């Protein structure tokens, strides 16, 4: 049995726990990224690496401290720098004297993990191993889908809720419960119950609130620590938030399912970018174009110096300016100052509200 860990993005670990359990391994939850982790990784990381790299490294270190013996890295080759993380992280961890087994997953994640984790699985000689792999992946993706549905409901409901903190707390409790549920039937029931619970929270829908669409890099959009709870802050400022990015979609990108479903949007984005610019760039452009029609403002989140998203910024800034849509772009890293961040956000919200009032 292996003690597996990988770097986190949002609530990815909730799904990974079921997958590891199904394959007969133990999932080690790293401590969620915080300033302590960053203080530890900053001197180890390359000087101008992107922010998610440092957070991912902090996850790896934290998991190793908690007893993980196997780290799974997503790698291979790519357009964006993400695929190069694993080489540098492995090098840094090895230089730090950490003992671990490294598995690099690239391409078809299902086949890669199937082969990599089989040797040490207690079910390796059993006929059940293959069905267990498929079941594990199904549960993994299903859990992420449930979280995505809950988050969508939360984003639609929270700005109107009488007690917004209560809504956030309910969401947190539901995710906690989901983390320890592994049966498919129970997952399904919990998913439906969670949606009902979120909808049942008292709300005041007498006024319509302006709506902001959030686009950008997956990590910056999903991870609350990275984006400084920007979704919650916007809700608190009386803004309804729409965001297409979730852990489920992130994993669908890695498992190559997503672009089948988003084909129309990708084709639309290719009017702006005639080549795939890596990462989430095509989707960011596609959603910026869509939100310019359906929302009152567009907020762009990305890790500072993110290669694909800076290109996106160069293209969508003039485009949204021409359309007269309020736009704010926030490059995030650990040096993002709280005061500057909130001032910019508040000013943006005022502009959005002004435009909404005029329309």
């Amino acid at each position, binding site marked *: 049995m292996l003690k597996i860990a990988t770097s986190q993005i949002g609530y990815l670990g909730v799904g990974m726990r079921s997958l590891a359990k199904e394959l007969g391994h133990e999932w080690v939850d790293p401590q969620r990224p915080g300033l302590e982790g960053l203080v530890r990784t900053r001197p180890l990381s390359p000087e101008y690496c992107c922010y998610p790299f440092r957070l991912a490294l902090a996850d790896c270190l934290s998991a190793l401290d908690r007893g993980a013996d196997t780290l799974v890295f997503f790698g291979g080759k790519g357009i964006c720098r993400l695929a190069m993380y694993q080489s540098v992280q492995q090098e840094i961890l090895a230089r730090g004297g950490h003992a671990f087994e490294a598995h690099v997953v690239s*391409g078809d994640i299902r086949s890669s993990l199937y082969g990599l984790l089989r040797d040490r699985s207690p079910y390796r000689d059993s006929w059940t191993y293959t069905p267990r792999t498929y079941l594990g992946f199904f549960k993994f993706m299903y859990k992420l889908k449930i979280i995505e549905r809950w988050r969508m409901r939360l984003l639609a409901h929270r700005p109107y809720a009488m007690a917004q903190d209560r809504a956030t707390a309910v969401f947190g409790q539901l995710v906690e419960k989901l983390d320890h549920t592994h049966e498919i039937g129970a997952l399904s029931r919990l998913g439906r119950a969670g949606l009902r619970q979120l909808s049942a929270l008292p709300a005041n829908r007498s006024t319509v609130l302006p709506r902001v669409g959030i686009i950008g890099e997956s990590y910056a959009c999903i991870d609350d620590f990275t984006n400084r709870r920007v979704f919650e802050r916007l809700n608190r400022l009386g803004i309804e938030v729409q965001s297409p990015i979730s852990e489920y979609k992130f994993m669908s990108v890695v498992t190559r399912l997503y672009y089948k479903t988003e084909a129309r949007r990708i084709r639309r984005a290719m009017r702006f970018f005639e080549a795939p610019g890596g990462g989430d760039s095509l989707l960011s452009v596609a959603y910026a174009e869509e939100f310019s029609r359906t929302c009152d403002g567009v907020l762009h989140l990305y890790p500072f110096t993110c*290669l694909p998203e800076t290109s996106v910024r160069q293209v969508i800034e003039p485009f949204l300016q021409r359309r007269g849509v309020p736009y704010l772009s926030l490059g995030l890293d650990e040096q993002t100052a709280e005061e500057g961040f909130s001032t910019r956000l508040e000013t943006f919200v005022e502009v959005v509200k002004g435009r909404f009032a005029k329309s």
Partner: protein
Amino acid sequence: MNRKSESCCYERTKPRTDLASKACFTVRYSAPKPKERMIPRDRRVGVPRVLAYDELREFFDALLEAAGMIIAVSPRSSKTLLDAGAARSVDDVCMPLKLSFGHIHALVQDGIEVVLVPRLVSVAKGRNFCPKLHVLPDLVRSAFPGLQVLAPYIDFHHSRREELAQHLEDACAPMLWQLGVPRRHFRTLVARALSAKTGENERPEPTQAKTDAPVIAVLGHPYAELDPLCGLDIPRSLRRLGARVVLSPSQPPLDHRGLGTDIYYEPTHRTARAAAYHIASGVDGIVLMTFFACGPDSYGAELLMYRLTRLAPHLPVLRIIADEQSAAEGLATRLETFVDIVRDGKKRRQQC
């Protein structure tokens, strides 16, 4: 068709199975079919003297001249151009990209209507360029509304062709059509341009330094080595300090001695190959030029540094990270110190 040839054919055409292939279902890896001609009234085509200019100059100059165009090259890089470029670009991109916007700005100021900005995706199977170069023509279109951009789509990795020369023929076809060249002349023109390309870029001649002068390799992206503004004029500064400077060979040998493993960005991989080549030829020190916010180098150069420490533990390596705020005094001090270290190391080795 027998079984073997079927499998070969499949190998050649099957989609990539790495992270980049996530978009392979819906995106295309070639230029869209051009809709309108792009013939400039004065027949002048602007070519920015930046990024891959030195590497592609011979080929594209010959091609454009054969197509009956007059080539207007932007002036040499200067602080003024950099400032103009920085004003046109977003703030968190690397210096060479800002500089390229400055060059295009200069061409626009000169009355140029059509510029050549190749879409550089890949020139070798399995390796690609920085994502910003993939979309550079789109960024230029966005920053300079109304400017017409000729953008040959050079993506050899996704091409079914086996030779880069054959792929260049495909990549340049839409551009030649836009310039009004009859289709029947495409192949001849590209062949003529390829024969004009000697493969040897213009490299500064080594100075007549003393034979006991330390040999220092200055490695980095081609424009970091050749453009004095981008590269902070490091080769000249080193020569002034009495060192003999060598640059990357234009086509470094493919053997990278493990330095380039897992580095899939072409410029950094090329630097790794050049480093391996120079270490084998016995240089006394290496200056590694990188840029702030450069994606390929942020991890690639780091890996290279780790591996250089292992491969040649006693070789002094200086890594310079350049941006538009790099101060000349600080750089001069670092270079002087470095040359002293290299010289001492060389003396010690000779005594041994």
